[in-house]
Protein backbone atom coordinates (compact mmCIF):
# COMPACT_ATOMS: atom_id res chain seq x y z
CA UNK A 1 0.00 0.00 0.00
CA UNK A 2 1.28 3.40 -0.81
CA UNK A 3 2.91 4.71 -3.95
CA UNK A 4 6.42 6.13 -3.68
CA UNK A 5 7.83 7.96 -6.67
CA UNK A 6 10.97 9.73 -5.44
CA UNK A 7 13.88 9.33 -7.86
CA UNK A 8 16.45 8.85 -5.12
CA UNK A 9 15.43 6.77 -2.09
CA UNK A 10 18.91 6.01 -0.84
CA UNK A 11 19.23 6.85 2.89
CA UNK A 12 21.63 6.02 5.74
CA UNK A 13 20.88 3.19 8.18
CA UNK A 14 20.42 5.80 10.87
CA UNK A 15 17.79 7.68 8.85
CA UNK A 16 16.01 4.44 7.84
CA UNK A 17 15.71 3.34 11.48
CA UNK A 18 14.34 6.77 12.46
CA UNK A 19 11.43 6.21 10.06
CA UNK A 20 10.21 3.42 12.37
CA UNK A 21 8.36 4.72 15.45
CA UNK A 22 7.68 3.30 18.92
CA UNK A 23 4.66 0.95 18.90
CA UNK A 24 4.71 0.56 15.12
CA UNK A 25 3.47 -2.72 13.71
CA UNK A 26 6.51 -4.06 11.87
CA UNK A 27 6.56 -6.92 9.34
CA UNK A 28 10.06 -8.40 9.41
CA UNK A 29 11.11 -10.00 6.13
CA UNK A 30 12.80 -13.32 5.45
CA UNK A 31 12.19 -16.28 7.72
CA UNK A 32 13.74 -18.67 10.26
CA UNK A 33 17.48 -18.15 9.65
CA UNK A 34 17.29 -16.68 6.14
CA UNK A 35 17.56 -13.13 4.77
CA UNK A 36 16.41 -11.21 7.82
CA UNK A 37 17.17 -7.45 8.16
CA UNK A 38 19.41 -7.85 11.22
CA UNK A 39 21.63 -4.77 10.68
CA UNK A 40 18.49 -2.60 10.78
CA UNK A 41 17.34 -4.30 14.00
CA UNK A 42 20.73 -3.50 15.55
CA UNK A 43 20.30 0.17 14.60
CA UNK A 44 16.78 0.23 16.13
CA UNK A 45 18.29 -1.07 19.38
CA UNK A 46 20.98 1.63 19.36
CA UNK A 47 18.26 4.25 18.85
CA UNK A 48 16.30 2.81 21.80
CA UNK A 49 13.10 1.99 19.94
CA UNK A 50 10.32 0.52 22.13
CA UNK A 51 7.23 -1.65 22.01
CA UNK A 52 7.34 -2.66 18.37
CA UNK A 53 4.59 -5.10 17.37
CA UNK A 54 6.20 -7.74 15.19
CA UNK A 55 4.12 -9.67 12.65
CA UNK A 56 5.09 -12.47 10.31
CA UNK A 57 5.18 -16.20 9.69
CA UNK A 58 7.88 -18.69 10.82
CA UNK A 59 10.81 -16.73 12.20
CA UNK A 60 13.88 -17.32 14.32
CA UNK A 61 16.97 -15.24 14.90
CA UNK A 62 15.35 -11.86 14.12
CA UNK A 63 12.45 -12.08 16.55
CA UNK A 64 14.52 -13.66 19.32
CA UNK A 65 17.21 -11.00 18.88
CA UNK A 66 14.66 -8.15 18.85
CA UNK A 67 13.08 -9.51 22.06
CA UNK A 68 16.50 -9.81 23.69
CA UNK A 69 17.36 -6.28 22.58
CA UNK A 70 14.27 -4.89 24.33
CA UNK A 71 12.59 -3.25 21.33
CA UNK A 72 9.47 -5.47 21.22
CA UNK A 73 6.07 -5.08 22.91
CA UNK A 74 4.02 -7.72 21.09
CA UNK A 75 4.71 -10.69 18.83
CA UNK A 76 2.23 -11.85 16.22
CA UNK A 77 4.53 -14.30 14.45
CA UNK A 78 3.31 -17.86 13.84
CA UNK A 79 6.44 -19.63 15.05
CA UNK A 80 9.68 -18.51 16.67
CA UNK A 81 12.51 -20.99 17.10
CA UNK A 82 15.90 -22.09 15.85
CA UNK A 83 14.26 -25.35 14.75
CA UNK A 84 16.07 -28.53 15.84
CA UNK A 85 19.33 -26.84 14.88
CA UNK A 86 19.62 -24.84 18.14
CA UNK A 87 16.16 -25.44 19.59
CA UNK A 88 13.84 -23.09 21.46
CA UNK A 89 14.28 -19.30 21.23
CA UNK A 90 15.57 -18.21 24.67
CA UNK A 91 14.95 -14.45 24.49
CA UNK A 92 11.51 -14.86 22.95
CA UNK A 93 10.50 -17.41 25.59
CA UNK A 94 11.75 -15.20 28.40
CA UNK A 95 9.89 -12.19 27.00
CA UNK A 96 6.63 -14.20 26.77
CA UNK A 97 7.00 -15.91 30.14
CA UNK A 98 7.78 -12.70 32.05
CA UNK A 99 4.95 -10.84 30.33
CA UNK A 100 7.41 -8.39 28.76
CA UNK A 101 5.85 -9.02 25.35
CA UNK A 102 2.24 -9.70 24.58
CA UNK A 103 1.58 -13.11 22.98
CA UNK A 104 -0.39 -12.58 19.79
CA UNK A 105 0.68 -15.84 18.09
CA UNK A 106 -1.03 -16.35 14.76
CA UNK A 107 -1.05 -19.02 12.06
CA UNK A 108 0.64 -18.87 8.64
CA UNK A 109 -2.30 -19.00 6.28
CA UNK A 110 -4.34 -16.70 8.51
CA UNK A 111 -1.61 -14.05 8.32
CA UNK A 112 -1.20 -14.62 4.58
CA UNK A 113 -4.95 -14.14 4.03
CA UNK A 114 -4.96 -11.02 6.24
CA UNK A 115 -2.08 -9.54 4.24
CA UNK A 116 -3.86 -10.45 1.03
CA UNK A 117 -6.99 -8.62 2.15
CA UNK A 118 -4.82 -5.56 2.64
CA UNK A 119 -3.14 -6.11 -0.74
CA UNK A 120 -6.55 -6.50 -2.40
CA UNK A 121 -7.83 -3.33 -0.73
CA UNK A 122 -10.71 -5.14 1.01
CA UNK A 123 -11.53 -4.93 4.74
CA UNK A 124 -11.62 -8.65 5.61
CA UNK A 125 -11.43 -12.10 4.08
CA UNK A 126 -12.90 -15.53 4.95
CA UNK A 127 -10.69 -18.42 6.06
CA UNK A 128 -11.88 -22.03 6.15
CA UNK A 129 -9.62 -23.20 9.00
CA UNK A 130 -8.83 -21.90 12.55
CA UNK A 131 -12.13 -23.51 13.65
CA UNK A 132 -11.49 -25.95 16.50
CA UNK A 133 -8.23 -24.29 17.53
CA UNK A 134 -7.58 -22.17 20.64
CA UNK A 135 -5.71 -19.72 18.38
CA UNK A 136 -9.06 -17.94 18.20
CA UNK A 137 -8.65 -17.02 21.92
CA UNK A 138 -5.57 -14.97 21.02
CA UNK A 139 -7.50 -13.04 18.37
CA UNK A 140 -10.82 -11.57 19.51
CA UNK A 141 -10.81 -9.65 16.20
CA UNK A 142 -11.52 -12.89 14.28
CA UNK A 143 -15.23 -13.40 13.62
CA UNK A 144 -16.59 -16.95 13.24
CA UNK A 145 -19.75 -16.86 11.15
CA UNK A 146 -21.92 -18.74 8.70
CA UNK A 147 -21.19 -18.28 5.00
CA UNK A 148 -24.38 -16.64 3.66
CA UNK A 149 -23.97 -18.44 0.31
CA UNK A 150 -23.33 -22.05 1.38
CA UNK A 151 -24.47 -22.07 5.02
CA UNK A 152 -21.06 -23.46 6.10
CA UNK A 153 -19.04 -22.28 9.06
CA UNK A 154 -16.19 -19.91 8.21
CA UNK A 155 -14.05 -17.35 10.03
CA UNK A 156 -13.67 -13.74 8.89
CA UNK A 157 -10.27 -12.21 9.53
CA UNK A 158 -9.55 -8.49 9.15
CA UNK A 159 -7.05 -7.02 6.69
CA UNK A 160 -3.62 -6.58 8.23
CA UNK A 161 -1.69 -3.47 7.17
CA UNK A 162 1.61 -3.21 9.05
CA UNK A 163 2.92 0.33 9.58
CA UNK A 164 6.19 -0.71 8.03
CA UNK A 165 7.78 -3.71 6.32
CA UNK A 166 11.54 -4.13 6.77
CA UNK A 167 13.07 -6.30 4.07
CA UNK A 168 16.62 -7.38 3.31
CA UNK A 169 17.07 -7.78 -0.48
CA UNK A 170 19.99 -9.07 -2.51
CA UNK A 171 19.98 -6.02 -4.78
CA UNK A 172 18.34 -2.61 -5.01
CA UNK A 173 18.80 0.54 -7.06
CA UNK A 174 18.44 4.06 -5.69
CA UNK A 175 15.05 4.42 -7.36
CA UNK A 176 13.77 1.57 -5.15
CA UNK A 177 13.54 -1.31 -7.62
CA UNK A 178 14.40 -4.58 -5.85
CA UNK A 179 15.87 -7.87 -6.87
CA UNK A 180 14.92 -10.50 -4.29
CA UNK A 181 15.86 -14.10 -4.90
CA UNK A 182 13.52 -16.90 -3.86
CA UNK A 183 12.41 -18.18 -1.45
CA UNK A 184 10.51 -14.95 -0.82
CA UNK A 185 8.66 -16.38 2.18
CA UNK A 186 6.09 -13.59 2.85
CA UNK A 187 8.20 -10.65 1.63
CA UNK A 188 6.17 -9.83 -1.46
CA UNK A 189 2.94 -9.88 0.56
CA UNK A 190 4.52 -7.72 3.29
CA UNK A 191 5.59 -5.15 0.68
CA UNK A 192 2.11 -4.93 -0.86
CA UNK A 193 0.27 -4.87 2.50
CA UNK A 194 2.41 -2.42 4.52
CA UNK A 195 2.16 1.38 4.65
CA UNK A 196 5.91 1.90 4.34
CA UNK A 197 8.61 -0.38 2.95
CA UNK A 198 12.17 0.04 4.17
CA UNK A 199 14.75 -2.03 2.36
CA UNK A 200 18.32 -2.90 3.24
CA UNK A 201 20.29 -4.44 0.37
CA UNK A 202 23.55 -6.34 -0.03
CA UNK A 203 24.30 -4.31 -3.16
CA UNK A 204 23.09 -1.07 -4.68
CA UNK A 205 23.34 -1.49 -8.43
CA UNK A 206 22.82 0.99 -11.30
CA UNK A 207 19.20 1.28 -12.44
CA UNK A 208 20.17 0.22 -15.96
CA UNK A 209 21.60 -3.06 -14.67
CA UNK A 210 18.51 -3.61 -12.50
CA UNK A 211 16.22 -3.19 -15.50
CA UNK A 212 18.29 -5.70 -17.48
CA UNK A 213 18.13 -8.22 -14.63
CA UNK A 214 14.41 -7.57 -14.10
CA UNK A 215 13.24 -6.31 -10.69
CA UNK A 216 11.17 -8.56 -8.44
CA UNK A 217 9.53 -5.46 -6.91
CA UNK A 218 8.96 -2.23 -8.89
CA UNK A 219 10.26 1.07 -7.48
CA UNK A 220 6.88 2.63 -6.65
CA UNK A 221 6.28 0.02 -3.93
CA UNK A 222 9.32 0.89 -1.81
CA UNK A 223 9.85 3.89 0.50
CA UNK A 224 13.56 3.90 1.33
CA UNK A 225 16.69 1.95 0.46
CA UNK A 226 19.87 1.42 2.50
CA UNK A 227 23.13 -0.08 1.32
CA UNK A 228 23.92 -2.82 3.84
CA UNK A 229 26.46 -5.43 2.82
CA UNK A 230 26.39 -8.33 5.32
CA UNK A 231 23.11 -6.77 6.51
CA UNK A 232 21.40 -10.11 7.15
CA UNK A 233 24.28 -11.64 9.13
CA UNK A 234 24.20 -13.98 11.04
CA UNK A 235 21.18 -15.19 9.01
CA UNK A 236 21.88 -16.26 5.44
CA UNK A 237 21.75 -14.13 2.32
CA UNK A 238 22.52 -16.42 -0.58
CA UNK A 239 24.37 -16.32 -2.89
CA UNK A 240 26.59 -14.02 -0.78
CA UNK A 241 26.71 -16.03 2.44
CA UNK A 242 25.20 -18.99 4.29
CA UNK A 243 24.07 -18.52 7.87
CA UNK A 244 26.77 -18.28 10.49
CA UNK A 245 26.43 -21.26 12.84
CA UNK A 246 29.54 -20.30 14.76
CA UNK A 247 28.12 -16.87 15.56
CA UNK A 248 24.61 -18.17 16.31
CA UNK A 249 26.15 -20.74 18.64
CA UNK A 250 27.90 -17.94 20.59
CA UNK A 251 24.64 -15.98 20.59
CA UNK A 252 22.70 -18.95 21.98
CA UNK A 253 25.15 -19.51 24.82
CA UNK A 254 24.73 -15.98 26.16
CA UNK A 255 20.97 -15.88 25.48
CA UNK A 256 20.44 -19.11 27.43
CA UNK A 257 22.36 -17.75 30.41
CA UNK A 258 19.78 -15.02 31.00
CA UNK A 259 18.85 -11.46 30.11
CA UNK A 260 21.81 -9.91 31.97
CA UNK A 261 24.38 -12.22 30.42
CA UNK A 262 22.87 -11.63 27.01
CA UNK A 263 23.25 -7.89 27.39
CA UNK A 264 26.81 -8.03 28.68
CA UNK A 265 28.16 -10.75 26.44
CA UNK A 266 26.23 -10.15 23.24
CA UNK A 267 24.47 -6.77 23.02
CA UNK A 268 27.35 -4.73 24.45
CA UNK A 269 29.81 -6.47 22.17
CA UNK A 270 27.90 -6.65 18.87
CA UNK A 271 25.29 -3.87 19.11
CA UNK A 272 25.95 -0.99 21.51
CA UNK A 273 29.72 -1.09 21.24
CA UNK A 274 29.78 -1.05 17.43
CA UNK A 275 30.15 2.22 15.55
CA UNK A 276 30.15 1.17 11.89
CA UNK A 277 29.30 -1.76 9.62
CA UNK A 278 33.05 -2.24 9.06
CA UNK A 279 33.62 -2.59 12.79
CA UNK A 280 30.79 -5.15 13.04
CA UNK A 281 32.29 -7.10 10.17
CA UNK A 282 35.69 -7.17 11.91
CA UNK A 283 34.17 -8.25 15.21
CA UNK A 284 32.34 -11.21 13.67
CA UNK A 285 35.44 -12.47 11.86
CA UNK A 286 36.21 -10.10 8.99
CA UNK A 287 37.10 -11.23 5.51
CA UNK A 288 38.04 -14.74 6.63
CA UNK A 289 34.51 -15.24 7.99
CA UNK A 290 32.93 -13.77 4.89
CA UNK A 291 34.97 -16.05 2.61
CA UNK A 292 34.11 -19.02 4.74
CA UNK A 293 30.36 -18.32 4.60
CA UNK A 294 30.62 -17.92 0.80
CA UNK A 295 32.35 -21.31 0.48
CA UNK A 296 29.00 -23.11 0.07
CA UNK A 297 29.53 -22.45 -3.66
CA UNK A 298 32.54 -24.75 -3.78
CA UNK A 299 30.42 -27.87 -3.59
CA UNK A 300 28.58 -30.36 -1.43
CA UNK A 301 31.39 -31.02 1.06
CA UNK A 302 32.13 -27.38 1.88
CA UNK A 303 28.42 -26.57 2.06
CA UNK A 304 27.86 -29.45 4.48
CA UNK A 305 30.75 -28.30 6.59
CA UNK A 306 29.04 -24.94 7.18
CA UNK A 307 26.18 -26.86 8.79
CA UNK A 308 28.43 -29.03 10.93
CA UNK A 309 30.28 -26.07 12.41
CA UNK A 310 29.68 -25.63 16.16
Amino acid at each position, binding site marked *: MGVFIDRNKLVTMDKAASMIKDEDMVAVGGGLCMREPIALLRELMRQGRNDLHLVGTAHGFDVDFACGGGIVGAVQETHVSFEQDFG*LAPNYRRACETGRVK*IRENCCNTIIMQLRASEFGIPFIPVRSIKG*SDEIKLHPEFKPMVDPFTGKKIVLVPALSPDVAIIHAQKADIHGNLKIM*PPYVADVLFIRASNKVIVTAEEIIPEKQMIEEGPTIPYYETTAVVEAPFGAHPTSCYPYYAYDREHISEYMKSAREGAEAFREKYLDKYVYGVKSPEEYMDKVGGKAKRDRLASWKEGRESWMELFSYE
Partner: protein
Amino acid sequence: MSERLEVGIDELFVVNVARTIMDRTTVFHGVSSPIPMVAMYLAKLTHAKDMVYFGGVSSAVDPNPPFLPPTTNDWVMIQGRTAMVTVDKIFDLAQRGELDRSFFSGAQIDKHGNQNVSMIGTPEKCKIKFPGGAGGCNLSGDCVNYTIWTTRHRAQKKGDRKFFTLVNKCDFVTNVGHVTPYGRREELDLVGNGPDWVVTELGVFDFDEKTKSMRLRYLYPDTTVNEVIDNTEFEPIVHPEVRVMDMPTREQIDIIRKIDPLGVRKLEYPEQELSRRFMI
Protein backbone atom coordinates in the same frame (compact mmCIF):
# COMPACT_ATOMS: atom_id res chain seq x y z
CA MET B 1 22.60 -64.34 1.39
CA SER B 2 23.75 -60.88 2.33
CA GLU B 3 24.91 -60.05 5.83
CA ARG B 4 22.52 -58.65 8.40
CA LEU B 5 22.58 -54.91 8.94
CA GLU B 6 22.30 -52.97 12.18
CA VAL B 7 19.89 -50.03 12.04
CA GLY B 8 18.94 -47.36 14.57
CA ILE B 9 15.59 -46.22 16.00
CA ASP B 10 16.10 -43.02 13.97
CA GLU B 11 16.09 -45.00 10.73
CA LEU B 12 13.15 -47.22 11.65
CA PHE B 13 11.19 -44.13 12.67
CA VAL B 14 11.84 -42.36 9.35
CA VAL B 15 10.63 -45.44 7.46
CA ASN B 16 7.44 -45.52 9.56
CA VAL B 17 6.71 -41.89 8.66
CA ALA B 18 7.56 -42.53 4.98
CA ARG B 19 5.03 -45.40 4.95
CA THR B 20 2.23 -42.90 5.59
CA ILE B 21 3.00 -41.23 2.23
CA MET B 22 1.24 -42.61 -0.86
CA ASP B 23 2.40 -42.32 -4.46
CA ARG B 24 0.70 -39.73 -6.70
CA THR B 25 -0.18 -37.40 -3.81
CA THR B 26 0.70 -33.81 -2.90
CA VAL B 27 2.83 -33.61 0.26
CA PHE B 28 4.32 -30.75 2.33
CA HIS B 29 6.34 -30.55 5.52
CA GLY B 30 6.54 -27.45 7.69
CA VAL B 31 9.18 -25.91 9.95
CA SER B 32 11.08 -27.79 12.67
CA SER B 33 10.46 -31.08 10.88
CA PRO B 34 13.74 -32.93 10.30
CA ILE B 35 12.11 -36.38 10.46
CA PRO B 36 9.33 -35.65 7.92
CA MET B 37 12.01 -33.97 5.79
CA VAL B 38 14.01 -37.20 5.57
CA ALA B 39 10.87 -39.35 5.27
CA MET B 40 9.49 -37.33 2.35
CA TYR B 41 12.75 -37.41 0.42
CA LEU B 42 13.02 -41.16 1.08
CA ALA B 43 9.44 -41.72 -0.15
CA LYS B 44 10.09 -39.63 -3.28
CA LEU B 45 13.15 -41.75 -4.11
CA THR B 46 11.45 -45.12 -3.40
CA HIS B 47 7.74 -45.95 -3.33
CA ALA B 48 6.28 -42.50 -4.11
CA LYS B 49 8.18 -41.37 -7.22
CA ASP B 50 5.18 -39.42 -8.51
CA MET B 51 4.55 -37.62 -5.25
CA VAL B 52 4.38 -33.83 -5.68
CA TYR B 53 7.10 -32.92 -3.20
CA PHE B 54 7.01 -29.48 -1.53
CA GLY B 55 10.22 -29.31 0.47
CA GLY B 56 9.43 -27.04 3.41
CA VAL B 57 9.12 -23.29 3.83
CA SER B 58 11.50 -22.67 0.93
CA SER B 59 8.66 -24.10 -1.24
CA ALA B 60 10.57 -25.70 -4.07
CA VAL B 61 8.63 -28.25 -6.14
CA ASP B 62 10.38 -31.64 -6.30
CA PRO B 63 13.79 -30.49 -5.01
CA ASN B 64 16.77 -32.78 -5.21
CA PRO B 65 18.96 -31.39 -2.41
CA PRO B 66 22.59 -32.54 -2.16
CA PHE B 67 22.00 -33.31 1.54
CA LEU B 68 19.34 -32.44 4.13
CA PRO B 69 20.08 -29.39 6.31
CA PRO B 70 18.98 -28.79 9.95
CA THR B 71 16.72 -25.90 8.86
CA THR B 72 13.73 -25.91 6.51
CA ASN B 73 14.39 -22.54 4.89
CA ASP B 74 17.76 -22.69 3.19
CA TRP B 75 19.03 -22.67 -0.40
CA VAL B 76 20.06 -26.30 0.08
CA MET B 77 16.36 -27.17 -0.12
CA ILE B 78 15.79 -25.49 -3.49
CA GLN B 79 18.60 -27.28 -5.34
CA GLY B 80 17.69 -29.55 -8.25
CA ARG B 81 14.07 -28.39 -8.19
CA THR B 82 11.53 -28.43 -10.99
CA ALA B 83 10.00 -25.07 -10.07
CA MET B 84 9.60 -22.56 -7.28
CA VAL B 85 6.24 -21.57 -5.87
CA THR B 86 5.62 -19.17 -3.00
CA VAL B 87 4.52 -20.67 0.29
CA ASP B 88 1.06 -19.06 0.07
CA LYS B 89 0.35 -21.22 -3.00
CA ILE B 90 0.78 -24.34 -0.86
CA PHE B 91 -1.74 -22.98 1.64
CA ASP B 92 -4.15 -22.25 -1.25
CA LEU B 93 -3.79 -25.84 -2.42
CA ALA B 94 -4.66 -27.00 1.11
CA GLN B 95 -7.67 -24.71 1.49
CA ARG B 96 -8.99 -26.05 -1.84
CA GLY B 97 -8.78 -29.56 -0.36
CA GLU B 98 -5.92 -30.59 -2.66
CA LEU B 99 -3.00 -30.99 -0.26
CA ASP B 100 -3.02 -34.70 0.55
CA ARG B 101 -0.61 -34.84 3.47
CA SER B 102 1.42 -32.88 5.94
CA PHE B 103 3.14 -33.65 9.27
CA PHE B 104 2.63 -32.15 12.72
CA SER B 105 3.93 -32.69 16.20
CA GLY B 106 3.29 -31.22 19.63
CA ALA B 107 4.60 -30.88 23.16
CA GLN B 108 1.19 -32.31 24.13
CA ILE B 109 -0.98 -34.62 22.02
CA ASP B 110 -4.40 -35.92 23.14
CA LYS B 111 -6.21 -39.12 22.14
CA HIS B 112 -8.17 -37.36 19.37
CA GLY B 113 -4.98 -36.01 17.85
CA ASN B 114 -5.23 -32.37 19.01
CA GLN B 115 -1.79 -30.88 19.60
CA ASN B 116 -0.35 -28.09 21.70
CA VAL B 117 2.58 -26.29 20.10
CA SER B 118 1.82 -22.92 21.76
CA MET B 119 2.05 -22.73 25.54
CA ILE B 120 1.49 -24.08 29.02
CA GLY B 121 -0.55 -21.58 31.02
CA THR B 122 -2.61 -18.78 29.53
CA PRO B 123 -1.67 -16.00 27.12
CA GLU B 124 -1.82 -13.55 30.06
CA LYS B 125 0.16 -15.79 32.41
CA CYS B 126 2.28 -18.03 30.25
CA LYS B 127 4.36 -20.62 32.15
CA ILE B 128 6.15 -22.19 29.20
CA LYS B 129 6.16 -20.72 25.70
CA PHE B 130 6.59 -23.23 22.91
CA PRO B 131 7.59 -22.03 19.42
CA GLY B 132 4.05 -21.85 17.95
CA GLY B 133 2.34 -23.93 15.30
CA ALA B 134 3.49 -22.02 12.18
CA GLY B 135 0.97 -23.24 9.56
CA GLY B 136 -0.32 -26.11 11.70
CA CYS B 137 -3.54 -24.51 12.91
CA ASN B 138 -4.61 -23.93 9.29
CA LEU B 139 -3.18 -27.04 7.66
CA SER B 140 -4.41 -29.46 10.34
CA GLY B 141 -7.88 -28.26 9.35
CA ASP B 142 -7.32 -28.15 5.61
CA CYS B 143 -5.04 -31.09 4.63
CA VAL B 144 -6.82 -34.18 3.36
CA ASN B 145 -4.94 -36.15 6.01
CA TYR B 146 -1.87 -35.68 8.13
CA THR B 147 0.66 -37.68 10.09
CA ILE B 148 1.45 -36.86 13.72
CA TRP B 149 4.92 -37.69 14.95
CA THR B 150 6.70 -37.42 18.27
CA THR B 151 10.03 -38.80 19.48
CA ARG B 152 9.07 -37.98 23.08
CA HIS B 153 6.24 -40.39 23.79
CA ARG B 154 8.16 -41.89 26.74
CA ALA B 155 6.94 -40.12 29.90
CA GLN B 156 9.54 -38.22 31.94
CA LYS B 157 9.76 -39.03 35.64
CA LYS B 158 10.54 -36.11 37.94
CA GLY B 159 10.35 -37.11 41.61
CA ASP B 160 7.06 -39.06 42.03
CA ARG B 161 5.47 -37.22 39.11
CA LYS B 162 5.27 -38.43 35.56
CA PHE B 163 5.11 -35.93 32.70
CA PHE B 164 3.36 -37.17 29.57
CA THR B 165 3.46 -36.00 25.97
CA LEU B 166 0.39 -38.11 25.15
CA VAL B 167 -2.02 -36.41 27.56
CA ASN B 168 -5.67 -36.57 28.61
CA LYS B 169 -6.13 -32.92 27.71
CA CYS B 170 -3.95 -30.35 25.96
CA ASP B 171 -3.45 -27.09 27.90
CA PHE B 172 -3.92 -25.25 24.59
CA VAL B 173 -5.08 -26.70 21.25
CA THR B 174 -2.99 -25.27 18.43
CA ASN B 175 -3.50 -27.94 15.76
CA VAL B 176 -6.86 -29.66 15.44
CA GLY B 177 -7.47 -33.40 15.65
CA HIS B 178 -10.78 -35.26 15.27
CA VAL B 179 -12.74 -34.02 18.27
CA THR B 180 -11.75 -30.48 19.25
CA PRO B 181 -12.73 -28.40 22.30
CA TYR B 182 -15.17 -26.66 19.94
CA GLY B 183 -16.78 -29.77 18.49
CA ARG B 184 -16.18 -32.61 16.07
CA ARG B 185 -14.50 -32.03 12.75
CA GLU B 186 -17.67 -32.51 10.68
CA GLU B 187 -19.62 -30.09 12.91
CA LEU B 188 -16.99 -27.43 12.20
CA ASP B 189 -17.11 -27.81 8.39
CA LEU B 190 -13.36 -28.33 8.22
CA VAL B 191 -11.96 -29.12 4.76
CA GLY B 192 -9.73 -32.09 5.67
CA ASN B 193 -10.24 -35.43 7.39
CA GLY B 194 -7.70 -35.02 10.16
CA PRO B 195 -4.79 -37.18 11.35
CA ASP B 196 -4.76 -40.82 10.22
CA TRP B 197 -1.41 -41.99 11.63
CA VAL B 198 0.60 -41.25 14.78
CA VAL B 199 4.22 -42.39 14.76
CA THR B 200 6.10 -42.37 18.09
CA GLU B 201 9.34 -43.92 19.31
CA LEU B 202 7.25 -46.55 21.15
CA GLY B 203 4.70 -47.54 18.50
CA VAL B 204 2.51 -46.64 15.54
CA PHE B 205 -1.18 -45.73 15.96
CA ASP B 206 -4.13 -45.17 13.68
CA PHE B 207 -7.56 -43.89 14.78
CA ASP B 208 -10.57 -46.00 15.73
CA GLU B 209 -13.43 -45.28 13.28
CA LYS B 210 -16.17 -44.94 15.90
CA THR B 211 -14.50 -43.11 18.78
CA LYS B 212 -11.95 -41.23 16.63
CA SER B 213 -9.36 -42.10 19.28
CA MET B 214 -5.79 -43.32 18.88
CA ARG B 215 -5.46 -47.09 18.43
CA LEU B 216 -2.15 -48.93 18.78
CA ARG B 217 -1.36 -50.89 15.58
CA TYR B 218 2.38 -51.61 15.54
CA LEU B 219 5.18 -52.02 18.08
CA TYR B 220 8.96 -51.79 17.67
CA PRO B 221 10.88 -55.05 18.16
CA ASP B 222 11.91 -53.78 21.63
CA THR B 223 8.62 -52.27 22.88
CA THR B 224 5.51 -53.88 24.44
CA VAL B 225 1.82 -53.01 24.73
CA ASN B 226 2.26 -52.47 28.50
CA GLU B 227 5.14 -50.10 27.94
CA VAL B 228 3.01 -48.04 25.56
CA ILE B 229 0.13 -47.96 28.07
CA ASP B 230 2.46 -46.97 30.96
CA ASN B 231 3.79 -44.03 28.98
CA THR B 232 0.41 -42.72 27.82
CA GLU B 233 -1.78 -40.65 30.15
CA PHE B 234 -5.03 -41.69 28.41
CA GLU B 235 -5.93 -45.32 27.86
CA PRO B 236 -5.09 -46.04 24.22
CA ILE B 237 -7.23 -48.49 22.26
CA VAL B 238 -5.20 -51.58 21.37
CA HIS B 239 -5.94 -53.15 17.98
CA PRO B 240 -6.75 -56.88 18.38
CA GLU B 241 -4.06 -57.68 15.81
CA VAL B 242 -1.35 -55.40 17.17
CA ARG B 243 2.07 -56.71 16.09
CA VAL B 244 5.69 -55.78 15.56
CA MET B 245 6.14 -53.55 12.50
CA ASP B 246 7.80 -54.79 9.30
CA MET B 247 11.51 -54.03 9.19
CA PRO B 248 12.84 -51.61 6.57
CA THR B 249 14.64 -52.89 3.49
CA ARG B 250 18.38 -52.51 2.99
CA GLU B 251 17.63 -50.16 0.07
CA GLN B 252 15.62 -47.83 2.32
CA ILE B 253 18.42 -47.71 4.89
CA ASP B 254 21.07 -47.06 2.24
CA ILE B 255 19.05 -44.15 0.84
CA ILE B 256 18.43 -42.63 4.30
CA ARG B 257 22.17 -42.66 5.03
CA LYS B 258 22.95 -41.17 1.64
CA ILE B 259 20.43 -38.30 1.69
CA ASP B 260 21.03 -37.45 5.35
CA PRO B 261 24.80 -37.50 5.93
CA LEU B 262 24.49 -34.79 8.63
CA GLY B 263 22.09 -37.01 10.60
CA VAL B 264 19.33 -34.40 10.97
CA ARG B 265 16.98 -37.37 11.54
CA LYS B 266 18.64 -37.85 14.97
CA LEU B 267 18.17 -34.29 16.23
CA GLU B 268 14.78 -34.79 17.86
CA TYR B 269 15.51 -37.59 20.34
CA PRO B 270 16.30 -37.64 24.03
CA GLU B 271 19.87 -38.99 24.15
CA GLN B 272 19.04 -42.44 25.62
CA GLU B 273 16.64 -43.37 22.77
CA LEU B 274 19.38 -43.27 20.14
CA SER B 275 21.13 -46.31 21.62
CA ARG B 276 18.22 -48.49 20.47
CA ARG B 277 19.57 -50.67 17.63
CA PHE B 278 17.92 -53.41 15.57
CA MET B 279 19.14 -56.10 13.15
CA ILE B 280 17.52 -56.42 9.74
